[in-house]
């Protein structure tokens, strides 16, 4: 009797669960190859580590340079305005024309009074300004901004003694005018 079977199935049955020992020593080759790969891997790890280290180091150096530069730079963007102490000038040595003694006395008194008034005003203004400018940096910055604003300068010229007063304080000029008027009144009575 013939027992025919599919050749594929027969091969499968014959070759299933079989093993064959390799003729050459494969492990030696595998071991050598693994060692080489290990070496390569270590090399790669080191180069990565060195690369990262260099990056970190250069980052630290760069940031320290930046911070150093920042410290050297002035902290204020705008220069601080100096307190307005010399906003008005007093010509202390005016060229006084030659006059008679009564005129001279009158003029001297007028100058003295004006000078005293000015000194008083001067002191109060300076004190107030000093207080203001000794405040915080923010206020200073605001003052800087104010320095860009338009300022009106008032000039007072005394034709009698050729004295010139230059100021931004309008109140001072007003007081001088009042003072002059009183003088005129005195003159008219005389």
């Amino acid at each position: 009797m013939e027992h025919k079977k599919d050749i594929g199935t027969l091969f499968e049955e014959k070759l299933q669960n079989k093993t064959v020992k390799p003729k050459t020593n494969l492990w030696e080759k595998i071991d050598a190859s693994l060692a080489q790969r290990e070496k390569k891997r270590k090399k790669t790890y080191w180069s990565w580590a060195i690369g990262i280290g260099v990056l970190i180091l250069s980052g630290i150096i760069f940031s320290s340079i930046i911070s150093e530069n920042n410290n050297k730079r002035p902290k204020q963007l705008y220069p601080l305005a100096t307190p307005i102490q010399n906003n008005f000038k007093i010509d202390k040595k005016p060229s006084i024309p030659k006059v008679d003694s009564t005129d001279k006395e009158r003029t001297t008194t007028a100058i003295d009074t004006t000078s005293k008034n000015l000194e008083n005003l001067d002191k109060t203004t300076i004190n107030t300004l000093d207080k203001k400018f000794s405040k915080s940096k923010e206020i200073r910055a605001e003052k800087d901004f104010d320095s860009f604003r338009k300022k009106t300068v008032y000039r007072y010229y005394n034709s009698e003694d050729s004295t010139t007063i230059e100021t931004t304080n309008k109140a001072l000029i007003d007081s001088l005018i009042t003072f002059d008027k009183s003088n005129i009144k005195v003159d008219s009575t005389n």
Partner: protein
Amino acid sequence: MNTEKELIERCKKRNRAAQSELFEKYKNTLYFLSLKYCRNEADAEDNTQDAFITIFEKIKSYKGKGSFEGWMKRITIYKAIAKYKSKKTIAVAYKNDLLEDTTIEKEQIELPLESLLQIVQQLPDQYRLVFNLYQMDGFSHKEVANLLSISESTSKSNYHRAKQLLKNDILKLKNNPKKTNNGA
């Protein structure tokens, strides 16, 4: 005595002694598998070597799902396929005198293992791969087609042709035991 799980864990840590132990344990199985898929012993040895290196390199990706031996066998098979794909040049010439019937008497295949392996190795590359994948290792024709980048019908046809060639060679060997013929 180490269990396989422990051995795998040690191999994951790249322990060379464990790797050697694993190699000794599976070298014959994987070498025999390579013999079926490759053209000759030298190719099979190269394939086994490449497969073991890949196994040791990729062992961390083995998460314990499925059999470890199966995982290693798949790597060995994929290595053989990759080798075949890298030097794919074949246009198989068919013999007209091939037998249509692919059945054979059981007694006729009673040959030494070496001879049977030689007959399989002498199949044209694509036929050999299709026959082994489908018949020996249980891949479907769809899977074979995907693996070898061929169509499903080509896989079926190659499988049938492979069996015809095997039958031809078996019969020739029976008639003339000193000579084998690959039929292509």
